């Protein structure tokens, strides 16, 4: 599903975020990417989601070589992923419902079908009764769940979450992790970057530990 072959990422200015990285992730796997902040976790996820291009080596998603992708093809690759960002990236000028609607609209799903899928996604994260609320009125945990609903609504094959529990207290954090685990159980490939490793032990799954841009 995902294959890194001697991948490196050198940022302009000389900062080398990833060095000579090779690994493979099978379809349906649950993988935790751990490491201190600055170890290259976010960069790794960005390379997978085609948000950035590697400066060395090849990244294969499915059978597509991300490094060689035409610019016009990039959006279509990105649609395969459900992204949960560290800072949620919710749109605060529209309702919970409309936030979840965005990926569907991008995918060309509108109208009745979209409504059905949006409500199913909101139901899954327990926000069905808040669909008309504005995101700013939600608690931190609820906002993160909304971000997850937005990530799953277009039924992606791969979910990628960058520090999804970073700013949440213990109870909320474990709720969120359970949610990701449930996606893994229905066959979705799940990648989670996290700075604390103990979540991974609880749910099984593989751990990729990064230290200064290298796998350890």
């Amino acid at each position, binding site marked *: 599903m995902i294959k890194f072959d001697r991948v490196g990422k050198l940022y302009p200015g000389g900062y080398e975020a990833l060095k000579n990285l090779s690994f493979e992730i099978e379809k349906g796997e649950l993988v935790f990417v751990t490491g201190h902040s600055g170890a290259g976790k976010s960069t790794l996820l960005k390379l997978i*989601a*085609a*948000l*950035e*291009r590697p400066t060395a080596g090849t990244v294969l998603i499915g059978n597509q070589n991300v490094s060689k992708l035409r*610019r*016009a093809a*990039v*959006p*279509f*690759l*990105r*649609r395969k*992923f459900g*992204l949960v*960002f560290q800072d949620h*990236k919710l*749109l605060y*000028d529209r309702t919970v419902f409309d936030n979840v609607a*965005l*990926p569907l*609209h*991008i*995918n*060309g799903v*509108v*109208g009745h079908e979209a409504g059905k899928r949006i409500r199913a996604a909101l139901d899954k994260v327990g926000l069905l009764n808040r669909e008309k609320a504005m995101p700013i009125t939600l608690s931190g945990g609820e906002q993160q769940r909304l971000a997850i609903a937005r990530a799953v609504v277009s039924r992606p094959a791969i979910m990628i979450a960058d520090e999804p529990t970073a700013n949440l207290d213990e109870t909320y954090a474990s709720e969120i992790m359970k949610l990701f685990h449930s996606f893994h159980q229905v066959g979705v490939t799940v990648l989670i970057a996290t700075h604390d490793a103990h979540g991974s032990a609880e749910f099984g799954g593989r751990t990729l530990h990064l230290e200064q841009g290298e796998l350890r």
Partner: protein
Amino acid sequence: MIGQILAQHRLAFSLVTGRMRRAPLALLMMIAVIGVTLSLPAMLYVALENIQRLAGGFHTAPQISLFLAMNAPEEQIKEIDAQLRKHKDVASYRFVGRNNAWQEMQQNTGLAEIAGGLEQNPLPDAYVVETKSGDPAVIERMQQEMQQWSGIEHAQLDAAWIKRLHGLLELGNKLVLVIAGLLGFALLITTGNSIRLQIATQQEEIALSRLIGATDRFIRRPFLYAGTLYGIGGGFAALLILASAVWLFNESVADLARLYASDFHLIMPTADISLALVGGSALLGWIGSYVAVNRALADIESY
């Protein structure tokens, strides 16, 4: 597939109209700016159109005077008469016999003295020809043609003033084109700038949409609709201003025309002009927003 594309467009359209409904003042101002800007060249154009119509009404004025040779034989005069009668561009013609002309000259207060100094009638027989067309080129061609007829000593044409008028109108037309071009460019900038401001307020949404797989086309679509709708609204506003101006001026123009025993009045902009105005305005709006969005997309390019 087509249903999906239509649905996408409907979505972008309703998104834009929703935003416009939430900010009606901004919409109104935008439409007013475009309307006022466009109404200026449109008014000039309609004014010119009317002057041209008025000038076209002068076709009784351009005359060609055909002076026959002294003592031209009777049959030659008859032949010229026949030629004039069947000429397709001649509206009417009138024979002025040399004796009649001589009498007229002697009775004319200003010319009687000169005539008195002459021993005999120096005037030839003549025809005064009125042309159907007011076009100086046509009239000139007629004059040259008639000059060639046998028995015609001199075909004289007083079309200088009409040439001047047409020259002025031509100049006016060019002026309208230049002004329309300049103001069109200004409109392009105005719409582009307004769209740029909208993009700035939706920067987050655009950036996020890109991250989760939106194509440039998807991002561009609502802004293109916004620009086009501004253009259409502005075009109609310009039309409204134009029609009001014509209506307002018409009363005074009709009064003035009545003094000259004419029923001349300004005509409203025609359907094709109205269509061109609204269509052109819509096109300008579309181009303006297209340029603005593409510039913004290039600025937030991340991949």
